């Protein structure tokens, strides 16, 4: 699997996701600078976490307007898979590739902690190595990860199975106790209609090695390798 990771001024988890992809695939992903309107053909585009443009104005807003995102939109339309993590999720929604938006955490504070996620479906490129209903543990680290969409959008998302992950308690119960940021319906990650674009706030790339917080994020990358090689 050939992966490209976008780098914006202020990105800061690009190294984490590169390390994860390299560990799983044995292959170094290509790092693509935001100003590059074109980049080599790739099987997967990753928009990584961080504080692109300082997260000023609105998270992801300025990065979404960069030349490289125009190219990402073109490729996404052709079906090239796009994975947006954390700030990447914010950028991808600002760019209109995913529905909804991410607003300030309901408690207004930055939160870095392990959370539990319920996998909503295994029917996607990104989640095929998980089982539907499986509970995994991965960290979050954000101040603006509170997923919000209007009722119509939510209904569409739910009807079409576009919710990828929900925050839950360790036993899988989806309720307020496991929700770290106030996300509506505990939504932690969503797909586009064709499930070729996925965005999520948690960091599977920081759950790859047992000494450093567990391995529950590994299957996401393994699933991608399986689908895309």
């Amino acid at each position, binding site marked *: 699997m050939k992966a490209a990771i976008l780098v914006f001024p202020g990105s800061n988890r690009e190294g984490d996701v590169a390390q994860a992809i390299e560990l799983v695939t044995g292959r170094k992903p290509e790092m693509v600078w935001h100003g590059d309107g074109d980049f080599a053909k790739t099987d997967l585009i990753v928009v990584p976490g961080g504080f692109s443009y300082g997260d000023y104005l609105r998270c992801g807003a*300025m990065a979404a307007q960069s030349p490289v995102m125009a190219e990402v939109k073109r490729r996404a339309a052709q079906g090239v898979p796009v994975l947006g993590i954390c700030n990447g999720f914010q950028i991808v929604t*600002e760019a209109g590739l995913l529905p909804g938006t991410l*607003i300030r*955490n309901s*408690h*207004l504070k930055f939160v870095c902690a392990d959370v539990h996620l319920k996998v909503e479906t295994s029917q996607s490129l990104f989640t095929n190595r998980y089982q539907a209903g499986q509970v995994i543990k991965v960290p979050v680290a954000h101040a603006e990860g509170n997923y*919000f969409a209007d009722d119509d959008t939510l209904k569409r998302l739910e009807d079409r199975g576009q919710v990828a992950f929900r925050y839950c308690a360790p036993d899988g119960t989806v309720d307020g106790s496991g929700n770290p940021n*106030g996300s509506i319906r505990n939504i932690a990650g969503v797909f586009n209609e064709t499930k070729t674009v996925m965005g999520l706030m948690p960091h599977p790339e920081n759950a790859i090695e047992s000494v450093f917080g567990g391995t529950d994020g590994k299957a996401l990358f393994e699933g991608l390798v399986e689908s895309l090689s």
Partner: protein
Amino acid sequence: MKARVHVTLKNGVLDPQGKAIGHSLNRLGFAEVGDVRQGKFIELEIAETDQARARARLDEMCRKLLANTVIENYSIELVG
């Protein structure tokens, strides 16, 4: 000239900051405070003398960057 842009959340969109401010004010003893909404206020210097053109450009800036029209409204004011 100078322009002022207000960006506010649309009705029905959750406003965690506004809610928290309202809450805090109530707890600080400002019981008279009801609903609170927080928006942004952006002041820009613009090298443009034509009012109509300035307004059109600002409108474009708002749609492209300053506001997220999925959840936000904006209004433009030209000064001086």
